[in-house]
Protein backbone atom coordinates (compact mmCIF):
# COMPACT_ATOMS: atom_id res chain seq x y z
CA UNK A 1 0.00 0.00 0.00
CA UNK A 2 2.84 2.31 0.77
CA UNK A 3 3.81 2.03 -2.89
CA UNK A 4 0.65 3.85 -3.78
CA UNK A 5 1.63 7.06 -2.01
CA UNK A 6 3.64 9.30 -4.19
CA UNK A 7 6.92 9.92 -2.48
CA UNK A 8 7.06 13.55 -3.61
CA UNK A 9 3.53 14.19 -2.42
CA UNK A 10 4.38 12.72 0.93
CA UNK A 11 7.41 14.95 1.47
CA UNK A 12 5.44 17.93 0.28
CA UNK A 13 2.71 17.15 2.78
CA UNK A 14 5.27 16.66 5.52
CA UNK A 15 6.67 20.06 4.80
CA UNK A 16 3.19 21.42 5.28
CA UNK A 17 2.93 19.68 8.60
CA UNK A 18 0.74 16.79 7.49
CA UNK A 19 2.14 13.40 8.26
CA UNK A 20 0.85 10.73 5.94
CA UNK A 21 1.45 7.06 6.33
CA UNK A 22 -0.10 3.82 5.38
CA UNK A 23 -1.58 1.22 7.64
CA UNK A 24 1.23 -1.15 6.75
CA UNK A 25 3.99 1.33 7.51
CA UNK A 26 2.44 2.28 10.80
CA UNK A 27 1.92 -1.33 11.76
CA UNK A 28 5.45 -2.36 10.85
CA UNK A 29 6.94 0.74 12.46
CA UNK A 30 5.21 -0.05 15.70
CA UNK A 31 6.23 -3.67 15.67
CA UNK A 32 9.81 -3.23 14.65
CA UNK A 33 10.54 -0.75 17.43
CA UNK A 34 9.13 -2.81 20.24
CA UNK A 35 10.55 -6.26 19.76
CA UNK A 36 10.47 -7.94 23.11
CA UNK A 37 12.87 -10.86 23.27
CA UNK A 38 12.24 -13.95 25.30
CA UNK A 39 14.55 -14.06 28.27
CA UNK A 40 16.23 -17.31 27.80
CA UNK A 41 19.86 -18.13 27.41
CA UNK A 42 21.45 -21.44 26.67
CA UNK A 43 25.20 -21.10 26.80
CA UNK A 44 28.13 -18.81 26.13
CA UNK A 45 26.27 -16.60 23.66
CA UNK A 46 23.71 -15.81 26.34
CA UNK A 47 26.41 -13.96 28.27
CA UNK A 48 27.09 -11.82 25.23
CA UNK A 49 23.34 -11.32 24.97
CA UNK A 50 23.31 -10.05 28.55
CA UNK A 51 26.27 -7.84 27.71
CA UNK A 52 24.24 -6.47 24.81
CA UNK A 53 21.40 -5.69 27.18
CA UNK A 54 23.78 -4.11 29.71
CA UNK A 55 24.67 -0.48 29.73
CA UNK A 56 27.56 -0.50 27.31
CA UNK A 57 25.72 -1.75 24.25
CA UNK A 58 22.22 -1.08 25.49
CA UNK A 59 19.76 -2.91 23.30
CA UNK A 60 17.08 -0.57 24.72
CA UNK A 61 18.11 1.93 22.08
CA UNK A 62 16.40 -0.38 19.60
CA UNK A 63 13.28 -0.96 21.63
CA UNK A 64 14.25 -4.45 22.66
CA UNK A 65 15.20 -4.05 26.28
CA UNK A 66 12.20 -5.74 27.81
CA UNK A 67 13.30 -9.36 28.12
CA UNK A 68 10.17 -11.29 28.95
CA UNK A 69 10.43 -14.37 31.12
CA UNK A 70 7.23 -15.76 29.61
CA UNK A 71 6.97 -16.83 25.98
CA UNK A 72 3.40 -15.57 25.87
CA UNK A 73 4.59 -11.97 26.01
CA UNK A 74 7.59 -12.24 23.73
CA UNK A 75 7.95 -11.52 20.02
CA UNK A 76 11.49 -12.67 19.48
CA UNK A 77 13.35 -15.75 20.52
CA UNK A 78 17.11 -15.29 20.56
CA UNK A 79 18.48 -18.82 20.52
CA UNK A 80 21.75 -17.94 22.21
CA UNK A 81 23.92 -20.98 22.60
CA UNK A 82 24.23 -24.67 21.98
CA UNK A 83 20.96 -26.49 21.53
CA UNK A 84 21.39 -29.97 22.87
CA UNK A 85 19.12 -32.81 21.97
CA UNK A 86 17.88 -32.88 25.53
CA UNK A 87 16.92 -29.20 25.31
CA UNK A 88 15.50 -29.15 21.77
CA UNK A 89 11.94 -30.27 22.64
CA UNK A 90 11.71 -27.53 25.25
CA UNK A 91 12.81 -24.90 22.76
CA UNK A 92 10.27 -26.02 20.19
CA UNK A 93 7.64 -25.96 22.91
CA UNK A 94 8.63 -22.44 23.91
CA UNK A 95 8.45 -21.39 20.28
CA UNK A 96 4.99 -22.90 19.98
CA UNK A 97 3.86 -21.01 23.05
CA UNK A 98 4.89 -17.65 21.62
CA UNK A 99 2.13 -15.59 20.07
CA UNK A 100 2.23 -14.64 16.41
CA UNK A 101 3.97 -12.77 14.86
CA UNK A 102 7.15 -14.32 16.21
CA UNK A 103 10.73 -14.19 15.06
CA UNK A 104 13.80 -16.25 15.78
CA UNK A 105 17.42 -15.14 15.78
CA UNK A 106 19.94 -17.97 15.82
CA UNK A 107 22.85 -16.41 17.66
CA UNK A 108 26.24 -17.99 17.33
CA UNK A 109 27.68 -20.99 15.58
CA UNK A 110 26.10 -23.54 17.91
CA UNK A 111 22.55 -22.34 17.37
CA UNK A 112 23.02 -22.20 13.61
CA UNK A 113 24.66 -25.53 12.96
CA UNK A 114 25.89 -27.07 16.19
CA UNK A 115 29.09 -25.13 15.63
CA UNK A 116 32.24 -26.49 17.22
CA UNK A 117 30.19 -29.05 19.10
CA UNK A 118 28.34 -30.38 16.09
CA UNK A 119 30.23 -33.66 16.22
CA UNK A 120 28.81 -34.36 19.66
CA UNK A 121 26.24 -37.06 20.15
CA UNK A 122 23.94 -34.83 22.19
CA UNK A 123 24.17 -31.66 20.12
CA UNK A 124 21.51 -30.63 17.66
CA UNK A 125 23.00 -29.60 14.33
CA UNK A 126 21.16 -26.33 14.13
CA UNK A 127 17.88 -25.19 15.61
CA UNK A 128 16.49 -24.71 12.10
CA UNK A 129 15.93 -28.43 11.97
CA UNK A 130 12.78 -27.85 13.99
CA UNK A 131 11.77 -24.20 13.81
CA UNK A 132 12.20 -21.52 11.13
CA UNK A 133 14.94 -18.99 11.78
CA UNK A 134 14.81 -15.41 10.52
CA UNK A 135 18.33 -14.15 11.09
CA UNK A 136 21.56 -16.09 11.56
CA UNK A 137 24.56 -14.53 13.32
CA UNK A 138 27.82 -16.39 12.77
CA UNK A 139 30.53 -16.08 15.39
CA UNK A 140 31.57 -17.92 18.48
CA UNK A 141 30.30 -15.97 20.30
CA UNK A 142 29.28 -13.00 18.17
CA UNK A 143 30.25 -9.62 19.58
CA UNK A 144 27.44 -7.61 21.14
CA UNK A 145 27.64 -5.30 18.15
CA UNK A 146 27.00 -8.28 15.90
CA UNK A 147 23.83 -9.03 17.82
CA UNK A 148 22.75 -5.41 17.44
CA UNK A 149 23.47 -5.68 13.74
CA UNK A 150 21.30 -8.76 13.53
CA UNK A 151 18.62 -6.92 15.46
CA UNK A 152 18.66 -4.16 12.87
CA UNK A 153 18.57 -6.77 10.16
CA UNK A 154 15.45 -8.21 11.76
CA UNK A 155 13.93 -4.75 12.01
CA UNK A 156 14.46 -4.21 8.31
CA UNK A 157 12.88 -7.58 7.65
CA UNK A 158 9.84 -6.63 9.69
CA UNK A 159 9.72 -3.30 7.92
CA UNK A 160 9.50 -4.96 4.55
CA UNK A 161 6.70 -7.35 5.45
CA UNK A 162 3.47 -6.90 3.53
CA UNK A 163 0.04 -7.01 5.06
CA UNK A 164 -1.80 -8.08 1.94
CA UNK A 165 -1.15 -9.61 -1.43
CA UNK A 166 0.59 -12.72 -2.55
CA UNK A 167 3.78 -11.96 -0.61
CA UNK A 168 2.20 -11.10 2.68
CA UNK A 169 3.88 -11.97 5.92
CA UNK A 170 3.89 -15.60 6.99
CA UNK A 171 1.98 -14.98 10.19
CA UNK A 172 -0.91 -13.46 8.26
CA UNK A 173 -1.35 -16.52 6.11
CA UNK A 174 -3.73 -18.89 7.89
CA UNK A 175 -2.42 -21.82 5.86
CA UNK A 176 1.12 -21.46 7.18
CA UNK A 177 1.79 -23.35 10.40
CA UNK A 178 2.66 -21.28 13.44
CA UNK A 179 3.38 -24.28 15.63
CA UNK A 180 5.69 -27.13 14.85
CA UNK A 181 5.71 -30.69 16.13
CA UNK A 182 7.77 -31.20 19.27
CA UNK A 183 10.36 -33.97 18.92
CA UNK A 184 10.35 -36.76 21.45
CA UNK A 185 13.21 -38.51 23.20
CA UNK A 186 14.06 -41.75 21.48
CA UNK A 187 16.28 -44.66 22.37
CA UNK A 188 19.27 -43.38 20.43
CA UNK A 189 18.32 -39.97 19.10
CA UNK A 190 15.53 -37.46 18.92
CA UNK A 191 12.51 -38.63 17.01
CA UNK A 192 12.21 -37.34 14.37
CA UNK A 193 15.78 -36.06 13.84
CA UNK A 194 14.52 -33.09 11.83
CA UNK A 195 11.34 -31.51 10.56
CA UNK A 196 11.34 -31.75 6.75
CA UNK A 197 8.79 -28.93 6.52
CA UNK A 198 11.31 -26.50 7.96
CA UNK A 199 14.65 -28.11 7.22
CA UNK A 200 15.35 -28.38 3.51
CA UNK A 201 19.09 -28.20 2.94
CA UNK A 202 20.20 -27.99 -0.65
CA UNK A 203 22.20 -30.86 -2.09
CA UNK A 204 25.89 -30.14 -2.18
CA UNK A 205 27.71 -30.99 -5.37
CA UNK A 206 31.06 -32.28 -4.28
Amino acid at each position, binding site marked *: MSEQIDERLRTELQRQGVWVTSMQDLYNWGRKNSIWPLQFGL*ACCAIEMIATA*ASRYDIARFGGEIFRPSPRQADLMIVAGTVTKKMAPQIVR*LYNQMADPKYVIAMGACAISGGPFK*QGYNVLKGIDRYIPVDVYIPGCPPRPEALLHAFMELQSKIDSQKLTGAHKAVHLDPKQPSEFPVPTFGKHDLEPPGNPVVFQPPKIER
Partner: protein
Amino acid sequence: MSATVQTLEAMERPPVSMGSRLEGELLEVSMGPQHPSTHGVFRMNVALDGEIVRKLKPVFGYLHRNHEKIGENTSYLGSMPYTDRLDYFCSMTNNWAYALSVEKLAGIQVPERAEYLRIILAELTRLQNHASLLGFLLNDMGAWGTPLMYAFREREKILDLFESLSGSRMMCDYMRFGGCRVDASDDWLVGAKKIVDRFPKFLDEFEELILGNEIVIGRTQNVGKVSAELAINAGVTGPMLRACGVNYDLRKVDGYGYYPHFKFRIPLGEHGDTYDRLMMRALEMRESVSILQQAFAQIQPGPVLNPKVKIRAFRPPIGEAYGRIEGPKGELGFYLISDGGPNPYRYRVRPPSFINLTILEDMCLGHTVADVMVILGSVDIVMGEVDR
Protein backbone atom coordinates in the same frame (compact mmCIF):
# COMPACT_ATOMS: atom_id res chain seq x y z
CA MET B 1 40.67 -13.41 58.50
CA SER B 2 36.98 -13.87 58.50
CA ALA B 3 34.01 -12.40 56.80
CA THR B 4 32.51 -9.57 58.75
CA VAL B 5 28.97 -10.65 59.31
CA GLN B 6 26.51 -8.06 60.43
CA THR B 7 23.69 -9.43 62.47
CA LEU B 8 20.59 -7.41 62.85
CA GLU B 9 18.42 -8.55 65.71
CA ALA B 10 15.33 -7.04 64.23
CA MET B 11 15.89 -8.56 60.84
CA GLU B 12 16.53 -12.09 62.03
CA ARG B 13 14.10 -14.45 60.48
CA PRO B 14 11.98 -16.69 62.69
CA PRO B 15 13.02 -20.34 62.65
CA VAL B 16 11.36 -22.17 59.82
CA SER B 17 8.49 -24.16 61.24
CA MET B 18 8.57 -27.74 60.11
CA GLY B 19 4.85 -28.31 60.51
CA SER B 20 2.80 -26.23 58.17
CA ARG B 21 -0.86 -26.46 57.46
CA LEU B 22 -0.43 -28.11 54.11
CA GLU B 23 1.74 -30.88 55.43
CA GLY B 24 1.24 -34.12 53.67
CA GLU B 25 0.24 -32.47 50.44
CA LEU B 26 3.44 -32.10 48.51
CA LEU B 27 3.33 -30.05 45.36
CA GLU B 28 5.82 -31.07 42.71
CA VAL B 29 7.21 -28.14 40.76
CA SER B 30 9.70 -28.31 37.94
CA MET B 31 11.84 -25.17 37.95
CA GLY B 32 13.67 -24.78 34.69
CA PRO B 33 15.21 -25.53 32.25
CA GLN B 34 13.80 -22.23 31.02
CA HIS B 35 13.71 -20.04 34.07
CA PRO B 36 15.10 -16.54 34.43
CA SER B 37 17.08 -17.30 37.58
CA THR B 38 18.57 -20.68 36.95
CA HIS B 39 21.78 -19.32 35.40
CA GLY B 40 21.25 -21.20 32.20
CA VAL B 41 19.44 -24.37 31.40
CA PHE B 42 19.38 -25.88 34.85
CA ARG B 43 16.35 -27.64 36.18
CA MET B 44 15.25 -28.53 39.67
CA ASN B 45 12.41 -30.84 40.52
CA VAL B 46 11.15 -29.43 43.78
CA ALA B 47 8.58 -30.94 46.11
CA LEU B 48 6.91 -28.15 48.05
CA ASP B 49 4.87 -28.22 51.20
CA GLY B 50 3.18 -24.87 50.99
CA GLU B 51 6.18 -22.66 50.37
CA ILE B 52 8.66 -24.91 52.12
CA VAL B 53 11.01 -27.09 50.11
CA ARG B 54 10.80 -30.72 51.18
CA LYS B 55 12.70 -32.35 48.36
CA LEU B 56 14.89 -31.01 45.59
CA LYS B 57 16.39 -33.02 42.79
CA PRO B 58 18.59 -31.23 40.30
CA VAL B 59 18.27 -32.35 36.68
CA PHE B 60 21.30 -31.85 34.49
CA GLY B 61 22.21 -32.41 30.90
CA TYR B 62 20.43 -29.62 29.08
CA LEU B 63 23.77 -28.25 28.02
CA HIS B 64 25.63 -31.54 27.81
CA ARG B 65 27.61 -30.86 24.68
CA ASN B 66 30.00 -33.81 24.82
CA HIS B 67 33.09 -31.85 25.69
CA GLU B 68 34.89 -34.96 26.90
CA LYS B 69 34.05 -37.07 23.86
CA ILE B 70 35.13 -34.28 21.54
CA GLY B 71 38.31 -33.87 23.58
CA GLU B 72 39.14 -37.52 22.98
CA ASN B 73 38.72 -37.07 19.23
CA THR B 74 40.71 -33.85 18.94
CA SER B 75 44.41 -33.22 19.22
CA TYR B 76 45.87 -31.85 22.44
CA LEU B 77 46.11 -28.41 20.89
CA GLY B 78 42.63 -28.63 19.42
CA SER B 79 41.08 -29.09 22.85
CA MET B 80 42.41 -25.76 24.06
CA PRO B 81 39.74 -23.61 22.38
CA TYR B 82 37.10 -26.02 23.62
CA THR B 83 38.17 -25.45 27.22
CA ASP B 84 37.25 -21.77 26.76
CA ARG B 85 33.69 -22.87 26.36
CA LEU B 86 33.55 -24.90 29.56
CA ASP B 87 33.03 -22.14 32.05
CA TYR B 88 32.51 -19.30 29.65
CA PHE B 89 33.08 -16.63 32.26
CA CYS B 90 36.57 -17.86 33.04
CA SER B 91 38.18 -19.00 29.83
CA MET B 92 41.62 -17.96 31.04
CA THR B 93 41.58 -20.18 34.12
CA ASN B 94 40.18 -23.05 32.07
CA ASN B 95 43.07 -22.63 29.64
CA TRP B 96 45.48 -22.62 32.50
CA ALA B 97 44.11 -25.75 34.13
CA TYR B 98 44.27 -27.65 30.86
CA ALA B 99 47.74 -26.35 30.02
CA LEU B 100 48.89 -27.26 33.52
CA SER B 101 47.65 -30.83 33.16
CA VAL B 102 49.32 -31.29 29.80
CA GLU B 103 52.50 -29.78 31.20
CA LYS B 104 52.36 -32.31 34.02
CA LEU B 105 51.69 -35.10 31.59
CA ALA B 106 54.61 -34.22 29.34
CA GLY B 107 56.95 -32.60 31.85
CA ILE B 108 57.09 -29.16 30.27
CA GLN B 109 58.70 -26.13 31.87
CA VAL B 110 57.06 -22.73 31.59
CA PRO B 111 59.09 -19.51 31.30
CA GLU B 112 58.85 -17.03 34.12
CA ARG B 113 57.13 -14.24 32.22
CA ALA B 114 54.46 -16.66 31.05
CA GLU B 115 53.80 -17.67 34.65
CA TYR B 116 53.35 -14.03 35.59
CA LEU B 117 51.04 -13.42 32.66
CA ARG B 118 49.03 -16.46 33.64
CA ILE B 119 48.62 -15.19 37.16
CA ILE B 120 47.63 -11.74 35.93
CA LEU B 121 45.04 -13.17 33.58
CA ALA B 122 43.73 -15.68 36.10
CA GLU B 123 43.25 -13.00 38.73
CA LEU B 124 41.60 -10.66 36.23
CA THR B 125 39.29 -13.54 35.42
CA ARG B 126 38.55 -13.97 39.09
CA LEU B 127 37.71 -10.29 39.38
CA GLN B 128 35.25 -10.28 36.54
CA ASN B 129 33.75 -13.63 37.48
CA HIS B 130 33.11 -12.65 41.07
CA ALA B 131 31.82 -9.21 40.09
CA SER B 132 29.31 -10.64 37.65
CA LEU B 133 28.38 -13.38 40.10
CA LEU B 134 27.44 -10.78 42.70
CA GLY B 135 25.41 -9.00 40.06
CA PHE B 136 23.57 -12.17 39.12
CA LEU B 137 23.02 -13.11 42.74
CA LEU B 138 21.41 -9.76 43.43
CA ASN B 139 19.37 -10.21 40.28
CA ASP B 140 18.04 -13.46 41.71
CA MET B 141 17.14 -11.64 44.89
CA GLY B 142 15.04 -9.18 42.98
CA ALA B 143 17.44 -6.29 42.56
CA TRP B 144 16.60 -6.46 38.88
CA GLY B 145 19.29 -4.93 36.78
CA THR B 146 21.19 -2.33 38.76
CA PRO B 147 23.93 -4.40 40.44
CA LEU B 148 24.30 -6.49 37.30
CA MET B 149 24.72 -3.38 35.18
CA TYR B 150 27.40 -2.06 37.51
CA ALA B 151 29.17 -5.41 37.49
CA PHE B 152 29.02 -5.68 33.74
CA ARG B 153 30.37 -2.16 33.41
CA GLU B 154 33.53 -3.30 35.20
CA ARG B 155 33.53 -6.62 33.40
CA GLU B 156 33.57 -4.88 30.04
CA LYS B 157 36.79 -3.12 30.99
CA ILE B 158 38.46 -6.43 31.78
CA LEU B 159 37.04 -8.01 28.65
CA ASP B 160 38.57 -5.20 26.63
CA LEU B 161 41.91 -6.15 28.14
CA PHE B 162 41.38 -9.78 27.17
CA GLU B 163 40.34 -8.75 23.70
CA SER B 164 43.33 -6.57 23.04
CA LEU B 165 45.68 -9.27 24.32
CA SER B 166 44.19 -12.47 22.96
CA GLY B 167 41.84 -11.26 20.25
CA SER B 168 38.56 -12.34 21.71
CA ARG B 169 36.36 -11.03 24.47
CA MET B 170 35.31 -14.31 26.01
CA MET B 171 36.90 -17.21 24.16
CA CYS B 172 40.49 -16.19 24.65
CA ASP B 173 42.29 -19.42 23.67
CA TYR B 174 45.35 -17.71 25.06
CA MET B 175 47.51 -20.27 26.81
CA ARG B 176 49.60 -22.94 25.21
CA PHE B 177 51.52 -25.87 26.62
CA GLY B 178 54.69 -24.31 27.91
CA GLY B 179 53.56 -20.71 28.05
CA CYS B 180 51.24 -18.26 26.41
CA ARG B 181 50.43 -17.66 22.77
CA VAL B 182 51.36 -14.00 22.46
CA ASP B 183 53.32 -11.65 24.66
CA ALA B 184 51.70 -8.73 26.39
CA SER B 185 53.07 -5.38 25.31
CA ASP B 186 54.17 -2.80 27.85
CA ASP B 187 51.20 -0.65 26.87
CA TRP B 188 48.89 -3.50 27.69
CA LEU B 189 50.46 -3.97 31.11
CA VAL B 190 50.18 -0.25 31.82
CA GLY B 191 46.55 -0.23 30.74
CA ALA B 192 45.79 -3.29 32.82
CA LYS B 193 47.46 -1.77 35.84
CA LYS B 194 45.36 1.35 35.46
CA ILE B 195 42.17 -0.69 35.43
CA VAL B 196 43.26 -2.78 38.39
CA ASP B 197 44.23 0.30 40.37
CA ARG B 198 40.77 1.72 39.90
CA PHE B 199 39.03 -1.54 40.72
CA PRO B 200 38.97 -1.02 44.53
CA LYS B 201 36.97 2.15 43.92
CA PHE B 202 34.35 0.07 42.18
CA LEU B 203 34.47 -2.46 45.00
CA ASP B 204 33.87 0.25 47.59
CA GLU B 205 30.92 1.49 45.64
CA PHE B 206 29.56 -1.99 45.06
CA GLU B 207 29.86 -2.95 48.71
CA GLU B 208 28.15 0.24 49.70
CA LEU B 209 25.42 -0.56 47.26
CA ILE B 210 24.61 -4.05 48.40
CA LEU B 211 26.45 -5.44 51.37
CA GLY B 212 24.88 -3.22 54.00
CA ASN B 213 21.46 -3.52 52.51
CA GLU B 214 19.01 -4.87 55.08
CA ILE B 215 17.07 -6.83 52.52
CA VAL B 216 20.21 -8.54 51.29
CA ILE B 217 21.22 -9.34 54.85
CA GLY B 218 17.77 -10.56 55.72
CA ARG B 219 17.58 -12.80 52.72
CA THR B 220 21.06 -14.25 52.95
CA GLN B 221 22.01 -14.63 56.59
CA ASN B 222 21.18 -18.07 57.97
CA VAL B 223 19.97 -19.15 54.55
CA GLY B 224 21.47 -22.27 53.03
CA LYS B 225 23.83 -23.14 55.86
CA VAL B 226 26.44 -25.82 55.25
CA SER B 227 28.62 -27.40 57.88
CA ALA B 228 32.33 -27.76 57.21
CA GLU B 229 32.18 -31.56 57.53
CA LEU B 230 29.44 -31.88 54.95
CA ALA B 231 31.18 -29.48 52.60
CA ILE B 232 34.44 -31.43 52.73
CA ASN B 233 32.72 -34.76 52.35
CA ALA B 234 30.66 -33.56 49.41
CA GLY B 235 33.76 -32.32 47.62
CA VAL B 236 32.72 -28.68 47.71
CA THR B 237 35.61 -26.42 46.77
CA GLY B 238 36.43 -22.82 46.18
CA PRO B 239 34.74 -19.87 47.88
CA MET B 240 31.87 -22.13 48.94
CA LEU B 241 34.20 -24.31 50.99
CA ARG B 242 36.03 -21.37 52.48
CA ALA B 243 32.73 -19.78 53.47
CA CYS B 244 32.35 -22.76 55.84
CA GLY B 245 35.64 -21.84 57.48
CA VAL B 246 37.81 -24.49 55.84
CA ASN B 247 41.18 -23.07 54.90
CA TYR B 248 41.82 -24.82 51.60
CA ASP B 249 42.96 -22.80 48.65
CA LEU B 250 44.96 -24.56 45.97
CA ARG B 251 46.96 -21.43 45.30
CA LYS B 252 48.44 -22.00 48.75
CA VAL B 253 48.11 -25.79 49.06
CA ASP B 254 49.48 -26.84 45.69
CA GLY B 255 51.40 -23.65 45.07
CA TYR B 256 51.15 -24.08 41.34
CA GLY B 257 52.55 -21.50 38.97
CA TYR B 258 54.32 -18.63 40.70
CA TYR B 259 51.77 -18.23 43.47
CA PRO B 260 54.28 -19.11 46.22
CA HIS B 261 56.08 -15.87 45.26
CA PHE B 262 53.04 -13.79 46.12
CA LYS B 263 51.72 -12.53 49.42
CA PHE B 264 48.01 -12.80 49.82
CA ARG B 265 45.48 -13.84 52.40
CA ILE B 266 42.71 -16.39 52.18
CA PRO B 267 39.38 -14.99 53.36
CA LEU B 268 37.43 -17.45 55.50
CA GLY B 269 33.80 -17.46 56.55
CA GLU B 270 32.31 -18.61 59.81
CA HIS B 271 28.75 -19.64 59.23
CA GLY B 272 28.72 -21.23 55.81
CA ASP B 273 25.53 -19.42 54.89
CA THR B 274 24.68 -17.50 51.76
CA TYR B 275 25.86 -14.21 53.21
CA ASP B 276 29.29 -15.65 53.93
CA ARG B 277 29.49 -17.03 50.42
CA LEU B 278 28.60 -13.61 49.10
CA MET B 279 31.18 -11.92 51.32
CA MET B 280 33.78 -14.45 50.31
CA ARG B 281 33.60 -13.22 46.73
CA ALA B 282 33.81 -9.59 47.76
CA LEU B 283 36.85 -10.24 49.94
CA GLU B 284 38.56 -12.45 47.38
CA MET B 285 38.34 -9.66 44.84
CA ARG B 286 40.32 -7.42 47.20
CA GLU B 287 43.00 -10.11 47.53
CA SER B 288 43.07 -10.56 43.76
CA VAL B 289 43.68 -6.87 43.34
CA SER B 290 46.65 -7.12 45.69
CA ILE B 291 48.03 -10.15 43.80
CA LEU B 292 47.67 -8.26 40.55
CA GLN B 293 49.49 -5.23 41.88
CA GLN B 294 52.37 -7.44 43.02
CA ALA B 295 52.44 -9.14 39.64
CA PHE B 296 52.58 -5.85 37.76
CA ALA B 297 55.45 -4.76 39.98
CA GLN B 298 57.41 -8.00 39.60
CA ILE B 299 56.94 -8.99 35.96
CA GLN B 300 60.13 -8.97 33.93
CA PRO B 301 60.64 -9.14 30.18
CA GLY B 302 61.48 -12.52 28.74
CA PRO B 303 60.17 -15.27 26.51
CA VAL B 304 56.57 -16.35 26.98
CA LEU B 305 56.66 -19.71 25.27
CA ASN B 306 58.89 -22.70 25.83
CA PRO B 307 60.47 -23.11 22.37
CA LYS B 308 60.94 -26.87 22.80
CA VAL B 309 57.23 -27.59 22.75
CA LYS B 310 55.80 -28.58 19.42
CA ILE B 311 52.55 -26.95 18.44
CA ARG B 312 51.54 -29.48 15.82
CA ALA B 313 51.70 -33.26 16.23
CA PHE B 314 52.24 -32.96 19.96
CA ARG B 315 52.47 -36.42 21.51
CA PRO B 316 53.05 -36.68 25.24
CA PRO B 317 54.55 -39.88 26.66
CA ILE B 318 52.28 -42.75 27.68
CA GLY B 319 50.83 -42.16 31.10
CA GLU B 320 48.28 -40.08 32.93
CA ALA B 321 48.15 -36.86 34.89
CA TYR B 322 45.67 -34.99 37.00
CA GLY B 323 46.28 -31.27 37.20
CA ARG B 324 44.14 -28.85 39.14
CA ILE B 325 44.01 -25.18 39.82
CA GLU B 326 41.96 -22.90 42.00
CA GLY B 327 39.45 -21.53 39.55
CA PRO B 328 37.11 -18.75 40.53
CA LYS B 329 34.41 -21.33 41.17
CA GLY B 330 36.52 -23.93 42.88
CA GLU B 331 38.92 -26.69 42.06
CA LEU B 332 39.08 -27.10 38.32
CA GLY B 333 40.92 -30.25 37.34
CA PHE B 334 41.80 -32.00 34.13
CA TYR B 335 42.52 -35.70 34.11
CA LEU B 336 44.32 -36.82 31.00
CA ILE B 337 45.39 -40.28 29.89
CA SER B 338 47.81 -40.46 27.01
CA ASP B 339 48.33 -43.60 24.98
CA GLY B 340 51.15 -41.98 23.05
CA GLY B 341 48.89 -40.84 20.26
CA PRO B 342 48.06 -37.34 19.05
CA ASN B 343 44.73 -37.33 20.92
CA PRO B 344 44.20 -37.89 24.62
CA TYR B 345 42.89 -41.40 25.30
CA ARG B 346 40.80 -40.09 28.16
CA TYR B 347 40.03 -36.46 28.67
CA ARG B 348 38.14 -35.66 31.82
CA VAL B 349 37.16 -32.35 33.31
CA ARG B 350 36.58 -32.10 37.02
CA PRO B 351 34.04 -29.29 37.02
CA PRO B 352 33.86 -27.36 40.30
CA SER B 353 30.33 -26.06 39.98
CA PHE B 354 28.93 -29.48 39.10
CA ILE B 355 30.31 -31.04 42.26
CA ASN B 356 29.40 -28.00 44.36
CA LEU B 357 25.79 -28.72 43.41
CA THR B 358 25.94 -32.04 45.29
CA ILE B 359 24.80 -30.29 48.44
CA LEU B 360 22.18 -28.09 46.79
CA GLU B 361 19.39 -30.21 48.22
CA ASP B 362 20.90 -30.14 51.71
CA MET B 363 21.15 -26.38 51.58
CA CYS B 364 17.62 -25.81 50.35
CA LEU B 365 15.64 -28.21 52.52
CA GLY B 366 13.37 -26.40 54.95
CA HIS B 367 13.70 -23.06 53.23
CA THR B 368 11.09 -21.32 51.18
CA VAL B 369 10.98 -21.64 47.44
CA ALA B 370 12.14 -18.05 46.99
CA ASP B 371 15.31 -18.87 48.90
CA VAL B 372 16.14 -21.68 46.50
CA MET B 373 17.04 -19.13 43.84
CA VAL B 374 19.25 -17.18 46.22
CA ILE B 375 21.01 -20.34 47.38
CA LEU B 376 21.49 -21.51 43.82
CA GLY B 377 22.83 -18.11 42.89
CA SER B 378 25.37 -18.24 45.69
CA VAL B 379 26.73 -21.58 44.45
CA ASP B 380 27.92 -19.80 41.30
CA ILE B 381 27.19 -22.31 38.60
CA VAL B 382 27.80 -22.04 34.90
CA MET B 383 25.98 -24.65 32.92
CA GLY B 384 28.70 -25.03 30.33
CA GLU B 385 30.83 -26.44 33.07
CA VAL B 386 28.15 -28.33 34.99
CA ASP B 387 27.00 -30.32 31.98
CA ARG B 388 30.07 -29.96 29.81
